[in-house]
């Protein structure tokens, strides 16, 4: 009970406090202390979930099972490292006069509202409340993206607000349709959207309604995830957002959006053959993966580069969930954690580089290794992890996804193109083809990413760029995340493995 209350009330209290506190040091302390408390509460909650299986509390408003608990771990872990990073990042922005000191409180207020909305979306038992919370994340972050109030950031913030609101309005129609089908079966109007109720009766829901509902939900929440072709807001928003916010958007918000999709998938899969949701996710995943890896080649702005890499990794996770099964789903979930760590690290270093070099252009950054040695190492680690090199943990999850893909069997071996053309391919050809495509674009991505990052790290920095890097509190999360990326690549701790395995059974029913 109390861990749930801490997780929900902590950000709200901290947010309200931030509005009245004037001194920067106190603001940072409150922020860090809150995140620490959330971390502790989440640890206790995880233990509880591991022992009891799931936790339902606050009436039936809150439902936490292995899947949502795993997402909560990502939220609190990235949130905690963000709070440390923001300490030095925001202070420097104030010192440079980019933001007025009095706006720091507003920044933290919005940050905590964002956090609250994400925690609420993950914990909500009702799909409707979950929708309200996801829309809440849009509303809280739009001003965070536009926080520096430059023309470009206002543009990015507006685009984000409009596109995500439209997407999410479509998702609400999907939720309404789910309710439409469930209220017929359950009768009780007030709890007919609760996951706990739905999961029990899902096989009796009307398949036609659920099909339509999932399509709307996929397009709607898919906009938040940043799946191609609904991704157009994403590169702009990530580029214009302050670095710690970009880290939260890429590492955590995308993960939460994927989570909302998985919740619906788990329900729809009981009423329909799992190929329906699986193939949809597979198609969206592949298109996102391929398009994003091609766009990575074109980027000349390193934050945009990382943004497209996010789209690519979400596509990859979607391929995992689309293939489904135990291995694919496990790989997809594990990849969410690995991507969150690697991408948050990437945006942290992007913030460091931007502050030192005053440019977002890849061509403007040379000789990172001499000017900022620690950041240079972190940049390389982030890049290696993002392209999927061992021994970093994304390698492991990507390997799982690829092996699930190669073991994929298809229900029918005839693909209908239009009404009259039917192509028949054998199973082997198809899965080999998909894997080959996957690996081909994996190589494209590797080349593009490493060439660009390499040109930033090596060489001599241009005139006027200071050399040497002094330690700040903002470097702590860099070290911790590098260690985590390597550690998780070598061995998965036992509790986390159990949690993941149970989360898989939430999504894949047998």
């Amino acid at each position: 009970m109390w861990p749930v209350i801490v997780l929900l009330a902590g950000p709200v209290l901290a947010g309200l406090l931030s509005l009245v506190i004037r001194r920067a040091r106190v603001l940072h302390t409150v922020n860090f202390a809150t995140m620490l408390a959330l971390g502790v509460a989440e640890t206790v909650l995880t233990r509880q979930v591991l022992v009891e299986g799931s936790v339902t509390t606050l009436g039936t408003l809150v439902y936490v099972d292995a899947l949502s608990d795993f997402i909560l771990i990502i939220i609190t872990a990235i949130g905690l490292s963000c709070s440390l990073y923001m300490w030095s990042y925001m202070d420097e922005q104030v010192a440079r006069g980019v933001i007025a000191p009095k706006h720091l409180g507003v920044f933290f207020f919005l940050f905590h509202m964002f956090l609250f909305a994400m925690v609420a979306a993950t914990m909500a038992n009702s799909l409707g409340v979950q929708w309200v919370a996801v829309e809440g994340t849009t509303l809280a972050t739009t001003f965070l993206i536009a926080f520096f109030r430059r023309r470009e950031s206002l543009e990015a913030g507006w685009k984000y607000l409009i596109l995500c609101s439209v997407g999410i309005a479509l998702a609400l129609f999907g939720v309404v349709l789910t309710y439409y089908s469930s209220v017929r079966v359950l009768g009780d109007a007030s709890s007919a959207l609760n996951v706990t109720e739905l999961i029990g009766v899902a096989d009796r829901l009307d398949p036609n309604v659920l099909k339509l509902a999932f399509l709307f939900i996929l397009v709607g929440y898919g906009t938040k995830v940043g799946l191609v072709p609904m991704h157009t807001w994403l590169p702009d928003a990530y580029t214009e957002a302050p670095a710690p916010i970009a880290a939260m958007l890429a590492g955590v918000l995308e993960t939460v959006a994927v989570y909302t999709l998985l919740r619906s998938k788990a329900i729809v899969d009981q009423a329909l053959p799992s190929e329906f949701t699986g193939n949809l996710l597979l198609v969206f995943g592949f298109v996102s993966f391929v398009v994003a890896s091609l766009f990575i080649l074109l980027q000349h702005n390193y934050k945009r580069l990382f943004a497209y890499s996010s789209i690519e990794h979400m596509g990859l996770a979607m391929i995992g969930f689309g293939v489904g099964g135990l291995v694919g789903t496990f790989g997809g979930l594990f990849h969410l954690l690995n991507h969150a760590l690697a991408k948050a690290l990437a945006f942290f270093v992007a913030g460091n580089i931007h502050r030192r070099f005053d440019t977002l252009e890849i061509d403007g950054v040379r000789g990172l290794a001499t000017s900022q040695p620690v950041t240079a190492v972190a940049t390389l680690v982030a890049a290696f992890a993002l392209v999927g090199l061992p021994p970093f943990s994304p390698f492991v999850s990507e390997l799982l996804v690829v092996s699930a893909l190669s073991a994929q069997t298809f229900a029918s071996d005839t693909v209908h193109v239009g009404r009259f053309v039917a192509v028949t391919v054998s199973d082997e050809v198809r899965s080999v083809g998909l894997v080959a495509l996957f690996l081909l674009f994996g190589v494209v991505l590797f080349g593009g990413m490493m060439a660009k990052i390499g040109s930033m790290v090596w060489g001599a920095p241009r005139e006027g760029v200071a050399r040497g890097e002094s330690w700040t509190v903002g470097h702590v999360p860099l070290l911790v995340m590098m260690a985590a990326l390597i550690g998780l690549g070598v061995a998965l701790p036992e509790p986390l493995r159990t949690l993941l395995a149970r989360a898989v059974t939430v999504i894949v029913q047998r």
Partner: protein
Amino acid sequence: MSEFTHLGSQLVNLCSVLLLLSCFAIVAQRRLSACVDLFALQSFFLATTAALVAFLTGHRHIYLAAALTVVIKVIVLPRILRKVIERLNVSRELVMNINIPAGLLICGGLVVVAFFITQPIIPLGYLLTRDSLAIALAIILIGFFTMIARKKAVTQMVGFLVMENGVFLGATAAAYGMPLIVELGVFFDVLVAGLIAGIYTHRLQDAFDSVDTSELTALKE
């Protein structure tokens, strides 16, 4: 079917159709302030539909939703939008990506699409409000289209609110309203979204001397 329910069903259908008609009127309207007025009118029809459904079915909580619709979507949000228009002096004719006759034709097509999509699932609905689900989807699609076809920040906001109205009609019609906590949450989100859009238009005006979103072109590949 009793005479009473039959009449009720006809009334609900009539109100839904009025909602749809006001959508077409918004698409055909060039003046910003008239768009906002039409949105308020549409929300009023929505509240009437909700109240009718509440009266005919005896679901009390729908009255609350109807009352909130009147307060937020008929009074508060249009007032915010009118203030924005006044302050920004943007009541001029709208520039559109698609001209009005073509837009209306496309919207007609969208209505057909909506009826086509919902055909397999309509028989599941309650007798009273069956056909409203298709109309709700049509309104959502037209709202979506409005957001694409119009360039001004204010009209994009109106388009979003029209979509929201469509979803709400769908919820009321298809399932006699969502659970109360969800409904309250949705209203809260819509209200905050309206406020945020109001602040944005102000800041966009300061930064660009325009709320024409087609001038938002600094961010490109």
